[in-house]
């Protein structure tokens, strides 16, 4: 669905990650524009699938969270 935008962003990210970030040179997010495009397409697809809210909720939990929200 968002394959092209995703591919453009992914390529940008991996290139930046391996050529700049890992060498200690990555200080700016060079892929921000591409990500914005990809993300808006992705969010639309996730909303359509009805899982956008589930993901947002899950993302709020910290790594050491014991899934307390499930007890409510």
């Amino acid at each position: 669905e968002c394959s092209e935008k995703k591919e453009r962003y992914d390529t940008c990210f991996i290139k930046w990650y391996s050529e700049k970030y890992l060498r200690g040179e990555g200080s700016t997010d060079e892929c921000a524009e591409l990500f914005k495009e990809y993300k808006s397409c992705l969010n639309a697809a996730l909303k359509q699938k009805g899982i956008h809210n589930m993901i947002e909720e899950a993302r709020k939990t910290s790594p050491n969270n014991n899934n307390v929200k499930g007890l409510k």
Partner: protein
Amino acid sequence: MVKFYENSFSYDYQWPAVTLAYFLRYPNPYSKHVVSSDTLSSHLDTQTGNLHVTRLHLKRGKLPASVARFLPKIKESYILEKSIVDVKHQRLETETRNLDWEGVLSVVESQVYTPGSVSTVSELETAAAGVGRTDVTTVVRFESRLGGAARNTQSDGMAGRWFSNWTTGSVQGSIELVGMRRMMEGFGGRREGMKVVLEQLRERGFVGVIKEQRQGGWERWKKAWRGEGVERTDD
């Protein structure tokens, strides 16, 4: 009830390569169940220099028969992956967990990737020559809270009603064990997947790897690398 599983492993590659392989690990011949991976966020913390990445993986697969007996067939499931790359200290921390059916079985896997410790002189020499090692320690936390699911308003509310009369402790324990067994079976496949990606990265660079992944060439990697056509299921 909660169960933990711990394990340590080493890859014969340097830390930067292993972290790159981590982000490129899907698709690979040992992870056919992973259908897609999307980046939800990527944030560089300018103060620490740490990179925070959150991704969503979609897996297609079935539960083992012993659990599927109780539950409707699960066709797709989502995995949330959070990673923090600390390039200054050469440390990658990851956390992956299932998003669906959390009330039935929650599996949270935390990993830490660091450069391998070099203890002998010959190891020092090989490290200097560019051959490296990366250690990864993994902790997996399994928890089933079926008894408490009766009040849960998520999708497993139905499961909660079904099970509220059962001995919740024993059902939870069984589910956790099944989850553990399945995960342990999957570990070998995941490591093989990482190794294949690392090998391909070394041979072709990330441009070649990405190209093959997008065009389906990755299906041949296993055979080309190992000369065998054995299928192995993955988590």
